[in-house]
């Protein structure tokens, strides 16, 4: 594998040399960047044109665990390939954040290894040694508390925890207490197991906030799901597009931007964000230190954090991290912004310590609460 990598490196170097020689005399053209592997910004790589040239020379990009119907990733993938002519290999689309990290560790520098990661916060913080620092051109638009100062990771898009429901199968949801009613018998599901999936953990936390708990105390949420279980309202099936479509999970706790996607299959799908429990969370981007296509990886980040990439996420009803800055500068897609689910109140985000306390509690109490 090392050999193949070195040969590939040699190939890139030769190609680069040729480009540099070819462009050398004309002066105006940009050469392909040769130091993409360690470049911490596009300018450190000789500017955007140089980064684009190097990425095109690599000719490929590997991404992992991003379903096409997740936050509009399908359009983003197609947009990147159309713009730069670089095909994308999307591996294990339904994998978890931990699956992404496992792939980086197991595949090393092989040509199949993931180049970039899109991961939940706790997994991000637990694997800091795997990332190469990189700052996108729009770095200053990302709020300071949503990025690592040296560029190891940076938040990308997020949303509010919500309750999605099929309005033909259940009455309108106006508070969390409604879910305990007899009309919801065998209908309420989570997107995953909260001891395993970040979205489900936040679902339980939202239930806790709505039932008098605090961000430091998830026990009220566990009690709420225990009540759901006792009433026979809780369905332990993982909610997916298929289970929503066939009616097995007509009420689902999930991020609002993921839940809203069900509207394409179920036109009567509604998304409810409780006013007293607006729980916000972001995913994070990071470039793999052992990325087999280091220039393409960096170019992908530039694309995601460009106005175009950010607006594509917004069209998928996810809130991009540069939203505030782009609203100010007028670059935001106003129609897409207006389509976001309504939420009244102050959004709350879990700190790393609060998340740790919550998962410790869940590890020992969740299984008992719902069985």
């Amino acid at each position, binding site marked *: 594998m090392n050999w193949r990598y070195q040969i590939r490196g040699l190939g890139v170097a030769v190609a680069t040399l040729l480009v540099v020689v070819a462009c050398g005399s004309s002066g105006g053209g940009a050469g392909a960047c040769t130091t993409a592997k360690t470049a911490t910004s596009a300018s450190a790589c000789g500017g955007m044109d140089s980064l684009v040239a190097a990425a095109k020379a690599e000719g490929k990009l590997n991404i992992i665990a991003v379903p096409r119907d997740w936050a509009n990733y399908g359009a983003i993938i197609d947009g990147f390939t159309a713009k730069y002519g670089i095909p994308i290999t999307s591996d294990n689309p339904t994998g*978890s*954040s*931990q*699956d992404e990290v*496992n792939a980086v560790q197991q595949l090393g520098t092989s040509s199949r290894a993931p180049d970039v990661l899109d*991961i*939940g916060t*706790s*997994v991000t913080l*637990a694997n800091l040694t795997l990332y190469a620092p990189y700052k996108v051109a729009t770095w200053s638009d990302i709020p300071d508390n949503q990025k690592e100062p040296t560029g190891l990771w940076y938040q990308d898009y997020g949303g509010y925890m919500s309750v999605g429901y099929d309005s033909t199968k259940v009455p309108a949801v106006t508070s969390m207490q409604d879910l305990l009613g007899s009309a919801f*018998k*065998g*209908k309420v599901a*989570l997107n*995953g*197991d*909260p*001891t*395993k*999936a*970040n979205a489900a*953990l936040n679902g339980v936390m939202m239930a806790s906030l709505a039932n008098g708990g605090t961000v430091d105390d998830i026990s009220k949420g566990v009690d709420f799901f225990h009540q759901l279980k006792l009433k*026979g309202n*809780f*369905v*332990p*099936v*993982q909610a997916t597009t*298929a*289970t929503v479509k*066939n*009616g*097995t999970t*007509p009420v689902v706790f999930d991020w609002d931007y993921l839940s809203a996607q069900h509207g394409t299959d179920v036109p009567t799908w509604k998304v409810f964000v409780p006013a007293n429990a607006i729980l916000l969370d972001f995913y994070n981007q990071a470039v793999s230190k052992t990325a087999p296509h280091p220039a393409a990886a960096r170019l992908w980040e530039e694309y995601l954090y460009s106005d175009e990439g950010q607006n594509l996420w917004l069209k998928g009803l996810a809130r991009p991290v540069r939203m505030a800055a782009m609203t100010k500068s007028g670059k935001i897609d106003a129609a897409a912004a207006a389509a976001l689910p309504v939420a009244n109140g102050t959004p709350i985000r879990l700190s790393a310590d609060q*998340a*740790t306390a919550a*998962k410790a509690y*869940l*590890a*020992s109490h*969740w*299984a*008992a609460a*719902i*069985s």
Partner: protein
Amino acid sequence: MTAAGYPAVTGVGRPMVGGRRLSLTWLGAVPFLAYVGVFLFLPTLIIAVGAFFGEGGFTLSNFSNLSRSYIVTATVNSIILSAVTAVAGAVLGSVLTYAIATGNPKGVVRRIAVSASGVLAQFGGVTLAFAFFATIGPAGFVYLWAAQHHLDFYASGFWLYDLRGLEVVYLYFQIPLMVLVFLPAVDGIRPQWREATESLGGSSWHYWRYVAGPLLAPAFLGATLLLFANALSAYATAAALINQGGIILPLQISNAITSEVGLHEPGFAKAQAVVLIAIVAIVTALYGVLQRRTARWLQ
């Protein structure tokens, strides 16, 4: 095993020949041994050794963590699920097998039953779970129809989503697997043996007790053991049907490997896998004892 007979034949005077033949015989088994080594012993070794390591190096905590209440529950559930579906699958499967074997050997029914078993035995996983959602799940058409006709079989709770539901669903691949592995043994029973029993004045009970029963017992027990191991290691069906709470051990292992909320404990997952291996080892040992008993019974 053939090598063991050699010294007696070659005698005391020519030990070299015996020795050389011994090594040649052994050579023939090399591909098999290599295969078993790479695909059975090596992974087992990696898991067994890995179970003793945590983030800070050597540790026994992975094994002490096995006493966590939810792991104990999952282990007990796994054993109950495997035992119930193995026994029920073996009994129902062998009845079906007997029906198939005593029918027309070239008949359409037999061919359909055997090929359907071949497909259904591999039908576990998300597809099987979804087939149940779509039929007898709370939103399934069979349930909705039954509920309209005052046959609400979920009146006392949604049993499809607990251990009872898993048992029913597992039987859908356990019974066909039993048919597949048990049919050759039942086919080996000759009708002439029954006729011989009858002509010697034996009853149907005598035939089953002294002829067919002893002949089929080892195959029956072996197939039951296979069903047990099959249910013990099944993962995808349960994961699709009951995503919450890690009701059985394979789901807990998955939680420990892939948790993205920071409950990622690969060493602990390996310790749980060691438990599964130990359960299969114990059951296999019991099977060995039972088989020796049935062998004695045969004499």
